[in-house]
């Protein structure tokens, strides 16, 4: 276990303080009572606790809410085009929960498979993720029900595991090693007993999550019952906002928008969501997903169905934010199980 250490909270803060030198460090910060990821200027701003989530995921530091893809200027009767500079500063995402770290990997699958997205790839290349395993589940958490873990390593370069007052720091990748290379002086190596704590945490947090698991075979049932009448009933109280998509660690949809005045302008990529009617609205006026029920179904299926291979993970990482923040109290896991039950009972073609 040469790559894991046991750190006191003071040692952890000191290490964090060292990271501020040469990196942009993004960590949970409390702002007007809301816990959010923000770039920090000093280590004492960071709120790193054994459990508890930020209001939304840190995805905006890889996939910004809005970013310019190109800019232009009218000068001297000509148009001057300009590529926004590729982000070069190295950033550390600190204190990311396991679910959110997995969410970033789901984003990678969208932006880095096939044609790589230039800006996303540059940011990803320059980002190191320091995750924090959970010692307790929030009421809305359900990671273990969708195949993820409160101590999951996916997407983490360095993992912090809460050991009561102390933390175990585990280096998981080469990128992670670079972050601790010259900080390890005076740290105590973690013992085998500390290592066992990970499994204990996983068991105890899983015990707090009361939801029954989402079965992987349901994906196919959901796809077969695409036209089933249950969807209409299950989502009739959806209000059609996009809280669920914007707080989601793995939602990756965007729109192109143009901001301009008489002298200059820019083409931007901004977050968008399948729950909005405009998302699929064609220029002709036709909308292939005309009702909010169809739109909500799209979101649910994109998380739990439409998988290329059976072994692919669900795109829902189980953070539960969409459940606790939905203005209309929609619950994605309950929707899935209710839809599956209805499709199985009434047959995939039961009318609306």
């Amino acid at each position, binding site marked *: 276990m040469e790559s894991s250490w046991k750190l006191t909270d003071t040692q952890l803060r000191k290490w964090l303080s060292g990271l501020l030198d040469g990196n942009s460090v993004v960590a949970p910060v409390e702002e007007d009572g809301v816990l959010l990821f923000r770039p920090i200027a000093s280590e004492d701003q960071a709120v790193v606790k054994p459990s508890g989530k930020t209001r939304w995921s840190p995805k905006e530091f890889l996939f910004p*809410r809005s970013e310019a893809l190109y800019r232009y200027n009218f000068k001297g009767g000509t148009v001057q085009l300009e590529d926004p500079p590729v982000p070069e500063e190295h950033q550390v995402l600190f204190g990311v929960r396991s679910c959110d770290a997995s969410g970033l990997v789901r984003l990678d699958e969208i932006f880095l498979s096939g044609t790589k997205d230039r800006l996303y790839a540059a940011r990803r290349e320059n980002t190191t993720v320091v995750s924090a395993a959970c010692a307790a589940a929030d009421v809305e958490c359900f990671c273990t029900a969708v195949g993820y873990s409160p101590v999951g390593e996916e997407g983490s370069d360095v993992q912090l595991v809460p050991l009561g007052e102390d933390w175990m720091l585990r280096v998981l990748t080469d990128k992670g090693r670079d972050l601790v290379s010259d900080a390890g002086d005076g740290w105590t190596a973690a013992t085998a007993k500390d290592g066992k704590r990970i499994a204990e945490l996983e068991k105890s947090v899983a015990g707090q999550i009361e939801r029954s698991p989402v079965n992987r075979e349901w994906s196919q049932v959901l796809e077969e019952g695409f036209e089933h009448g249950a969807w209409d009933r299950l989502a009739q109280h959806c209000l059609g906002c996009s*809280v669920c998509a914007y707080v989601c660690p793995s939602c990756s949809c965007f729109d192109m928008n143009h*901001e301009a005045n008489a*002298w*200059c302008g820019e083409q931007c990529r*901004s977050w968008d969501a399948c729950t909005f009617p405009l998302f699929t609205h064609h220029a002709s006026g036709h909308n292939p997903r005309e009702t909010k029920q169809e739109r909500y179904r799209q979101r649910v299926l994109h998380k739990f169905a439409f998988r290329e291979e059976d072994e692919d993970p669900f795109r829902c990482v189980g953070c539960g934010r969409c459940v606790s923040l939905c203005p209309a109290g929609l619950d994605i896991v309950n929707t899935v199980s209710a839809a599956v039950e209805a499709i199985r009972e009434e047959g995939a073609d039961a009318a609306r």
Partner: protein
Amino acid sequence: MTEANVTAAKSEAGAVPENWKPHIVALVCNWCSYAGADMAGTTRREYPANVRMMRFPCTGRMSPLMILRAFEQGADGVLVSGCHPGDCHYVQGNLVARRRFTIFRSLMDFIGVDLKRLHFAWVSAAEGHKWAKVVSEVTTSVQEAGPLPSFEHPEGWGGIDLPEMTGSGPQELDEQRLDAIRANLRKAASEVLTTERAGVVIGYGSGSLPDQTHPVLITKTAECEKLEWGQGCRNNLGAYVGSALEKHERVAVVAKTCDLGAISGLIREGQLRRDQLLVIGVQCPGVRDGSGLATKCLSCSGDPHPICDLVVTVEGVQESCEDPSAAALDTPDARDEQIAYLESLPHEERWQYWQRQFGRCLRCYACRAACPLCYCSTCITDKHRPQWVPTSIDHPGNSTWNIIRAVHLAGRCTGCDECARVCPADIRLDLINRKLSLEVERQYGKIGLDPEEKSALVDFRMEDSEEFIL
């Protein structure tokens, strides 16, 4: 966005550069002020050249969005000018505009825009001299105010602590009494469906998290057992009435006292007819927001209001037949002290206070979705030709969105606080709404519950106050 030419004057350090001259956008009416400016020219009047004019048919055409757009694009000041009251070429355009500007101006002040930047004037076609004088005064005033503060996150700003909100809240209802209410509500709903007084009952069903409910649309008497009642019943179900009416001729809706204003507003604004609606008012224990009672509940009695058709209490279900015109909303509000405190701060600090919150806005439009009175089929922010509200999710567009949402609800919002409740970024939209309600009430009288009443901002009086107009 990229640097607009008009903002080029600002130095990076924040200090006002020497020889700095303000950029001012003037929105003028075609008939009076534009001709007045022309008159100033032909009579060789001299005045500062900092003003860029935009010509509109009438002040009545000028939306606050146009003023916001100017600030967003880097203008340091805006002047709005049109015909004197009584001179409008469209008879009443400027009179309606006067109310709109009065309310908008108070909101701009509240969010921290120095009012030295925002001016209104009546200048007739004959008043070339007045135009020159107004432009000189406005230029001096904007020069004093300095460059417009940036739309950005106030880095390193410590924040402010607003006074605690207190209030006794509604009468406490123990579990036994809540059970009684629940049973009565289910009985009432089931009767409504059996007697076909409505085709659907919109109520609350139990949610998946502790203390959470979700709206349910019940069409079968057997399902009435699903109806919940308690401190988790947060939604204003008025938001579902419109879509329910697409499928049913008559809709019954379960309502708390705080929901009724919006329901009444929907009738007042012609979105539904009173006879399409059966309002089931239920005695309310207050709703929970986090660990305590929601702010709106602190000064509410929880008693069902006279505009309901059916009233459900611990005792039973009664038909109500009181006169809605006498009904008014409760005045005292726990927020008023916070608003007064914010108003006592310098405008720079208010700007930082709101910029930090607007910066968090994700533009998820949950505020719009949850609001029963945001019923436009296409919201102004979804209109892209022309695009009035920038779609990019950052400070300028977020500020415009949050301001214009509130302006569009001024004189209509009745404080159900749904927008603030559903905001994932905890933006204090309730403070903004309440501030506007207070201003509308101060200027034009109370927003009542009477569906027959006209909304303040689509109405006017010749004698409306205009002390701020040059």
